[in-house]
Each structure stands twice: as structure tokens, then as C-alpha cells.
């Protein structure tokens, strides 16, 4: 499984990853400070450092679990990809994503969800992502996730003064294919509320109980109804025979 390692300490903020991304995905050249339907990746300034933002390509993506029609799925190569032919536009993926990544073509009457696809089409051809290929500073590295993790910890160990002892994306939302390292101030720029566990199981624990819940509730309803019918029938017979005084008095 492939992924990306971003190293904030090596990034020089040249923005060539952004340009390469736009070219590869045929997006308009306009520049944005935030992710948008035409900006799958951005380079943010955090103090005097730079931080790349993009889809994190979760190992167990919330968006893919949330999508009612399976328009989003994680490929074996690593990317979380979107098929707009399936999409109905419910935007549950946007709500579900812990990183708030998926964007929408709000101005369109046939809108699509837009986000980084980790150059899934290039990966299929055995090529790295466009952003990693053009990075002149080795700040964005492409490779197999375990190799990238090892590289990340090697860089951290080699320069503990400039790196926080943490690889962002190891545990966040259960782990992601995109990994980020850098100084403490970069780590502080991330949303602290992102859970350190995979999220799809939170809905699956409920969904997986549906068949048994329906069976139990159905049986319960029928049983209750049978008992009540029987009691009413008995009461009716009792009334006919004149033995049930209570029922008789009631009518």
C-alpha cells in the first residue's frame, strides 16, 4: 500500500506540488488558501514553516463507509477514490470526513465531490503522484507506507531538535496513507479533536445489529399480539358463557 510522506522541515514553500496537481488533474490555475473543488492540495503558512494540506487517504476511510452508493472506496494501492457516476450528492461523505476534506461543486447543477485521488491513475501505471515527482526538496516523498514510516522516524531520530516526536497519520482516524512530520508548531496546527481511532466501526456496530434487531422486534410484536388476541378471545368466550363478570360489566 502506497502513500505520501510530507516533511514540513524540508518544504521550501515553492508551490510546485500545487501546480503539478493542477496540471495533472486539469484544474484551473487560480490559487486558493483553502482546499476547494479546484484545489485538491494547498501549501499553508504556519509561522515561518509550510504545511501541505490534502486528503489524508485514511486506511479505513469514513467517507467510503458513509457513502450510500459506494461512490468512494479505498483501492488496494492506497488512494481513496471517487466515482461520480454513482454519486447522488447527499454529501454525507463531507459530513463524515474527520479531516473535513471532501469539497463540492456548489455552483454546478450537476455537482461532483472533489478531492485528491492520490493520483490513482498514475499509481496504476507504476508512477508516483505528480506532487511527489516534482518536489525539488524531498519534502513530499512517495513510497510504500511502511517504508515512509521508517523514513519518517529516521529523519526524526536524526534531528530531534527540529522534529516533534510524532508522525501525524499513524493513529489519526485509525491511520492514514498520508503521513506528516515537522516541528511542534506544525503539529499544533492540526485539529486536536480528530479521534485516534478508525471511525467506520462506530456506525457498523449499530448497522451490523439490524438483522437480529429486526428479527427480535418482529418476533416480540407477533408474540405480544398473539397473547393479546388470545386473552381477548378467552374473554369473549367467557362473556358468552357468562363466567367473566368483569367483561360483562364493562360492556
Amino acid at each position: 500500500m502506497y502513500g505520501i510522506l510530507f516533511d514540513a522541515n524540508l518544504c521550501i514553500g515553492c508551490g510546485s506540488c500545487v501546480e503539478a496537481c493542477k496540471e495533472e488533474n486539469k484544474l484551473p490555475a487560480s490559487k486558493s488558501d483553502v482546499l476547494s473543488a479546484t484545489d485538491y492540495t494547498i501549501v499553508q503558512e504556519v509561522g515561518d514553516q509550510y504545511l501541505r494540506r490534502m486528503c489524508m487517504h485514511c486506511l479505513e476511510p469514513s467517507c467510503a463507509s458513509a457513502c450510500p452508493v459506494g461512490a468512494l472506496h479505498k483501492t488496494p494501492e492506497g488512494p481513496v477514490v471517487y466515482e461520480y457516476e454513482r454519486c447522488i450528492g447527499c454529501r454525507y461523505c463531507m459530513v463524515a470526513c474527520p479531516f473535513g476534506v471532501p469539497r463540492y461543486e456548489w455552483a454546478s447543477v450537476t455537482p461532483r465531490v472533489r478531492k485528491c485521488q492520490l493520483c490513482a491513475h498514475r499509481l496504476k501505471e507504476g508512477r508516483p503522484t505528480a506532487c511527489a515527482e516534482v518536489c525539488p526538496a524531498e519534502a513530499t516523498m512517495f513510497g510504500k507506507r511502511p517504508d515512509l514510516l521508517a523514513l519518517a522516524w529516521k529523519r526524526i531520530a536524526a534531528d530531534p531538535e527540529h522534529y516533534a516526536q510524532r508522525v501525524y497519520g499513524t493513529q489519526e482516524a485509525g491511520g492514514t496513507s498520508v503521513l506528516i512530520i515537522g516541528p511542534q508548531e506544525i503539529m499544533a496546527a492540526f485539529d486536536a479533536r480528530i479521534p485516534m481511532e478508525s471511525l467506520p466501526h462506530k456506525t457498523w456496530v449499530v448497522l451490523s445489529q439490524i438483522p437480529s434487531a429486526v428479527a427480535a422486534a418482529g418476533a416480540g410484536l407477533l408474540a405480544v399480539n398473539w397473547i393479546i388476541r388470545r386473552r381477548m378471545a378467552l374473554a369473549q368466550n367467557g362473556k358468552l358463557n357468562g363466567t367473566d363478570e368483569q367483561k360483562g360489566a364493562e360492556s
Partner: protein
Amino acid sequence: MNRILARMASPWRVLGLICLIAGAYATVLRFTRGLGGVTHLSDTFPWGLWVGFDVLCGVGLAAGGFTVSAIVYVLGIEKYRPVARPAVLTAFIGYLLVVGGLMFDLGRPWRIWHPMVMWNPHSVMFEVAWCVTLYTIVLTAEISIMVFERLRWMRATHIAHKATFPLTIMAVLLSMLHQSSLGSLFLIVPGRLHELWYTPFLPLLFFTSAVAVGLSMVIFESNLSARAFGRALELDVQEGAAKLAAIVLCIYLIIRGTDLIRRGALAALWPLDRAGIMFLIEITVGFIIPILLFSNPRVRRNTRWLYHASQLMVLGFVINRLNVAVTGFEVVTGKTYVPAWTEIAVTLMLVTIGVIAFYLAAKYLPVFEPDTTSGERFQAWRFTGANRLAAPRTPAGLRGIDGGGD
């Protein structure tokens, strides 16, 4: 009294007309300019009024349909039979409006059928889509009985009456799933929904509050329709529904309170911020005051009080759903969302259509059954069809707009 009604109705009719015209205009804008042109939704706020009100509240307010039919057809409590049909009718119209709302909210509404053929059983939205579809079909079948009766299609009526019990079982099961699944939708956002609302118990809380609001809607509606059609109020039914609602609301509060305390979420109330204020309003208006009112025997014997208590419960329920869908996200993301006028116009248009549909159905279909004496009731319960067919539709007594004045 007709004159009074006519005078009362006319401003409402003007308002309804305005809603329809504004909504129609907003509809044109929606399908020519896209969601961005008519809503204040954004990438950081992808769900707004249409999901929060039209879908979440629409489904919830329809809960009276399965609650009452379960009480009547499964538990065999005959007292509630007179309100079973109006409640099922409300549910049917509610669901049509939910589907209508989805046609606006979905980015590509012409693909609304996709979940039927493109499956993802891991998605709560997939479950929601199936529940909406199946329950709408079940409701259509339940409603068709009234149409068959009206058209005097004896054979169809006979078959439909035989199907009532299995349909009710399906309605209860599907509603159980659907009401709770709307809560489950939010289980996947622990980091993005405020802790006063995010809890693993969301499905259970959504279901319980739906049952309570379903009962409140029965009280609310039987009051309204009594006014509109000059029918007698089913006071003992209302009294019973209020008592049940109070019990269900208490169960809800116990679950909610225990959960809040166990998670330590009540600490988020201090210092009191927007989230805390909205939480307190929701709990007070929708749950605590209605419990106090519904559990008071004097209130339960007074239709006017009951009417207002049920209104409060419905209002509190709407605040609860909007808090989960809007406020709970706003306070965490720091981004505010105020619906655009076009969003409100579409919602009001859908509500207006619903009210008109209910009025027309109540007027032209056998929705309100003639009174049955208690002796007939047991028979009616076992041989539902024959009894109702034989009974002519007599205009019910004009006993009162405020029949509960003692």
C-alpha cells in the same frame, strides 16, 4: 361557526399562497443555479435546513403513524382507533415531503434510486435510503385502504383490510430502523459534533424522542382537525396519548441524563456558551415542561392546555434535531450557518403542500371514522373491514372547538 372559520382561515390561506409562490420561485432557482446559488451551505457546512428540518423533523413528526397503529393493531387498544387513520395519513404525507425535500437537497436528485441498485451496507445513509423507500411503500398501502373504501371497491378494500396487520408490523419495524438510523448518521462524527449531542446512544435517543413527538403530534393534530372540520375531540384518546407521551419523555430524559453524566458532558455547560444555551432551551421546552404538563391530570383534561403542551413538545423536538444537525456542528467548527431565504421558502412551501394535502385527504377520504360503540369495538378489531364498510360517513357532532372546557 362556519363564518368564524372562514374569517380565521383567510389570513392563513394568504400566507399559504405566499409560501407556495415564493417556494416555486426558489425551486426554479435551485434547479438553474445549483445548491450554491440558493443555499448558504458550504464545504465546511454541507448540511443545513433541508436535512435538519425537512428530513430529520419530517421523519420524526411522522412517527405518530407507526406508534398509534402499533397501539391499535398490535396491542389491540381500541380506544386509539379513531386517531389511527389521521396518524397514518400524517406519516404518509410526512414521508412524501421528506422525499420532496430530498429532491431539493440531493445534488443529483434524478439518481435518488441509486441506493436501490448500488449497495453499501456499511453506510447508515444506505439504511436510511432503504427505510424511506420501503416505509413510503408500506404507507402507500396503508393509505390505499381509505381510497378503496371511498371508491367502494369492495374486493380491494377487503384485501387491504386483511393486509392491515402485516402492514402494521412492517411499519413498526421499518420505523424503528428509520427513526434510529437518523441518529446513527451522526455516530461517525465524534470529532465534529458537540459533546452535548454526540453520544453512542444517538440511535436510541432519536427513536425514543420520535415516539414521544409522534404522540404529541396526535394530540396536536386531533385538536387542529377538530377545529377545521368541526369534529368532536377524542378527549380520552388525548388524555391517554398525553400520559403515554409523558412516560416516553421520562424514559428519554433518563437515558439522556445518565449518558450526559456518565460521559461527563454536562461540564460543557459551564461557562454557558451558545451550545449550552441551545441545549437548555431544547431540554426545557421539548422535554421538561411537556413532562410536567402531560403528567398533570388537570392539564390532561383540558384540551387547550394539551394543545399547547403538545405544541411545545413538537417545538422542542424540532430544536433538538436542528441542534444535532446545525448547532452541534456550528459550535465545534466555529462556522455559523443561517439558512438562505430560498432554503426557508422551499421548506415552507413543502410544509404548506403537506397541510393542504392533509386537509384535502381528510375532506374527501374516510380518515375520521364515525364513532363506534364499545360493544362494536371488539368485533371491529377482529373483522375490521365489514364493520367500517357498513357504517355510513355521518358528520360527527359539532360538540366543540374547545370540547375540554368541562
